[in-house]
């Protein structure tokens, strides 16, 4: 029983992940969350002084609030077991990762536990967002200075 034989057995026994149904579910749930986001955009435009461009900010905050409620009452992990990326990609997924880490480390105290671990999952999103934004903006600014590209 060498390594090659063992790996063939493992591949044979591995259940194939249902790619298509997962993608369909992710599409549905992701679509629904974005539609709710669009409704919130209309809501903020209608009742508050936000334009289409700036309405995205309060919408993001509201969706994170909804994610907090769903996470706190334990529904979010059920949704994401069904939806997968559909519930992780929208901003609610980001909110869920922060809220779940915060609730999780409550027993270790608020400063060390919650404070220290809150961005355990979401931190990489912010770090790589800033890093990529910096390089993209840097490269584009230099290109514009050389005159290759326009703003």
């Amino acid at each position, binding site marked *: 029983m060498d390594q090659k034989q063992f790996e063939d057995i493992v591949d044979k026994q591995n259940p194939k992940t249902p790619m298509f149904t997962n993608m369909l579910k992710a599409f549905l749930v992701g679509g629904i969350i974005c539609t709710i986001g669009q*409704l919130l955009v209309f809501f903020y435009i209608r009742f508050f*002084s*936000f*334009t289409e*461009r700036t309405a995205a*900010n309060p919408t993001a905050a509201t969706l994170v609030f909804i994610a907090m409620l769903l996470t706190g009452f334990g529904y979010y992990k059920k949704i994401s077991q069904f939806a997968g990326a559909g519930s992780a990609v929208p901003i609610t997924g980001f909110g869920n990762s922060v809220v779940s880490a915060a609730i999780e480390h409550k027993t270790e105290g608020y400063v060390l536990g919650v404070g220290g671990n809150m961005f355990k999952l979401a931190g990489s999103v912010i770090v790589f967002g800033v890093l990529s934004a910096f390089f993209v903006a840097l490269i584009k600014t230099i290109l514009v200075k050389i005159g290759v590209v326009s703003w």
Partner: protein
Amino acid sequence: MKNKWIVILLFLTLGACSDASERSVYPSQDVELEKVLDEQDSIIGYKSLMDDNTLLVSIEIPTMKRFSKVKIEENIKKELENQYPNKEVIVIDDLKVRWEIEKIIEKEQESKELTKSIEKILALSKEET
């Protein structure tokens, strides 16, 4: 429990706005402006306000053409600037601006009040965050 709240919200927002592709110019004696705006094939509706030194036009771009929203706004702005050289022309495709202009048209505001509300809308549209 949760989706009841969403359904209410859905009706709320849909009911609030009036028919989408309306065309209106205020104060309405400027036929020329209407002619220019009707020629534009890339928009399906417009609402505009004009006072002595600014011309504010809110346009409505059909969904499929919204990718080139910025280009369409610039073309119409250029065209209107030739038409009204002494006026500051602003062309925006924004739901909020359109609804605000609708309100102003309904209230038939006159000169001084009209200018103040136009300033308010312009300040609103400049906001970034």
